[in-house]
């Protein structure tokens, strides 16, 4: 099994008529054909005002409502430009699309504050924004990650960073360790889904054997996650924090640091992870081998 998406997922792409949207819809489509036997495919595009056209071999609709009704789409992948992206997220949320993945980078924070408020009490999942998306290898690719580096398997991957997610996946695959699902949660100040919700899903997923969490300096999300995992996750876990050598003084102002309750240095995060029983990879080159070690220890 996987989490969030699988062969049954039917994806619509918001912003499919744009340059990046078009390119990546094509890549996702190709992944579905090559690696997933046609499952987890892109079934529709949405661009307001361009309904009736065809893009990447799928019909384009004016609205998410129409696309979902006509094609049975139950997940949305968003490539809409920053000024209009929050609106695109809200449209999918309001149409009860189950899984909403927003790749767009550069959305104003105030827009996301409002989206975050709007989502309260609703149960659809938002991943991102400013993220590479989600992939369940061999089932469904919903994002911009290079598909061929993945391998179907039993490691769950959660990461704040985009390309660092590819790095860890490539290292796992090189060690012969496939992945159940890989999620880039995004690096913006406000993101739809944090580590803990995904950890819970991986812990409940019978086919996920172990989980790797990749974090970055700043804030306390990784520490909170580690403390939660100590009590709630029984599967082996590996952690890595990027930014061990980042110089101080290049972060948000005083007030921000106070609110997040500490400076969130890599050393502090790694220490808390270790205290909570997570095996920490010190070097970004050792994430895959550290997972091999964690599996041995069980």
């Amino acid at each position, binding site marked *: 099994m996987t989490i969030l998406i699988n062969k049954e997922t039917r994806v619509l792409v918001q912003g499919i008529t744009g340059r990046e949207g078009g390119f990546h819809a094509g890549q996702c489509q190709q992944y579905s054909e090559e690696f997933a036997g046609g499952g987890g495919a892109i079934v529709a595009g949405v661009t307001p005002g361009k309904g009736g056209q065809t893009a990447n071999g799928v019909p384009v609709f004016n609205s998410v409502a129409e696309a979902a009704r006509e094609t049975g789409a139950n997940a949305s992948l968003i490539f809409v430009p920053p000024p209009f992206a929050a609106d695109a997220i809200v449209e999918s949320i309001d149409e009860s699309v189950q899984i909403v993945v927003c790749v767009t980078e550069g959305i104003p924070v105030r827009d996301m504050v409002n989206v975050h408020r709007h989502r309260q009490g609703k149960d659809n999942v938002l991943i991102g924004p400013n993220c590479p998306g989600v992939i369940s290898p061999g089932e469904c690719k919903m994002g911009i990650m290079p598909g061929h580096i993945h391998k179907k398997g039993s490691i769950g991957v959660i990461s704040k960073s985009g390309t660092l997610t590819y790095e860890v996946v490539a290292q796992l695959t090189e060690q012969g360790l496939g992945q159940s699902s890989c999620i880039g949660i995004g690096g913006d*100040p406000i993101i739809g889904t944090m580590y803990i919700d995904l950890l819970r899903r991986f812990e409940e997923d019978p086919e996920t054997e172990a989980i790797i969490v990749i974090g970055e300096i700043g804030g306390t999300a990784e520490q909170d996650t580690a403390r939660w995992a100590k009590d709630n996750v029984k599967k082996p876990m590996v952690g890595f924090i990027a930014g061990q050598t980042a110089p101080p003084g290049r972060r948000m102002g005083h007030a921000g640091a106070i*609110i997040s309750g500490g400076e969130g240095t890599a050393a502090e995060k790694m220490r808390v992870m270790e205290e909570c029983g997570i095996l920490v990879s010190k070097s970004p080159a050792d994430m895959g081998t550290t997972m091999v070690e964690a599996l041995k220890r069980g």
Partner: protein
Amino acid sequence: MNIHEYQGKELFKKYGVTVPRGKVADTADEAEEIAKEMGGAVVVKAQIHAGGRGKGGGVKLAKDPAEARKAASEILGMTLVTHQTGPGGRVVKKVLIEEASDIANELYLSIVLDRSSGRPTIMASTEGGMDIEEVAAKTPEKLIKIQIDPALGIWPSTARRVVYGLGLEGEQAAEGAKFVSNLYKFYDEMDCSLVEINPLVQTADGRMFALDAKVNFDDNALYRHKDVAEMRDIGEEDPLEVEASKYNLNYIKLDGEVACMVNGAGLAMATMDIIMLAGSSPANFLDVGGGANKDMVENAFRILMDDDDVKAVFINIFGGILRCDVLAEGVVEAVKTVNVNVPIVIRMEGTNVEKGRDILENSGLDFTVGNGMADSAEKVVAALKR
């Protein structure tokens, strides 16, 4: 994006956030004129994008116009070093001349996004003028934190909670609540990422002023605020960082010798980490971003080569949205126009990696190919030693 105190105060006025009477001056003559206009004692304040100006000698009290002139001539042109400027300090180009306030009480007020709740949060304290991090650490009970529901915005009762928490009463409480509400409206409508007033002062005659103004804006929202975007002072930024921002490159100059070009902030930080683990140090952080085109890569490469400290280049790209062939074309173009006299190690994986490698191999460019991060970092460090 940061702005100067005087700019922040001009914007405050538009929102009814009260500030002392004042004007900005570029010369000592202007400073004297403004002091005459003000009448009475004035404060002459250095305008740089950093805190701690008073301790560094950048803020002076002047009883009359002649003293204001003298203070301005001392401050203008000085290199002001504070705990936030770094050892190099900043050259002062403007001073703010303000009427001196008869201060009865100093408070602290700020608004910032609380990432964990996703809501703007008002922070206030009776300990104005102090280092607020210290207040939070030593006397957390003296720091009021109130989250704002963005769907409601600020309501009078919310503003009252702030001012009653600060111990204000009567007319002062009413005026304070108005001040807090206006500041929130400013923060919200102007897409700020931080507004901090330290100190917020009450005068002996019962007025309330923002004596300082620290305002940061969300870069992603600047397209909605052209007037704010025009306030940018590039003299306050590193020249190479200014150049990089023209091309939407996320570049930070560091002290080391290995220039890095990476896509994605996380991988860029991890690349810096592995350079350090391999025994050298990074010359910069450079994230060319997800949507980089050939032009951006070319300019990024040029900026790396403009840094005299650079002794080797490590290009680490894991193609996702950025395709490896695009990266390769950009590097090849850049090398044609830029004089490259340091070793280059390139590590590429991901989308269109085969095409990218073909382009590099057929370019005649002299470079070393790295396999994975550890191998590449070792090759960079080995190249440095040759």
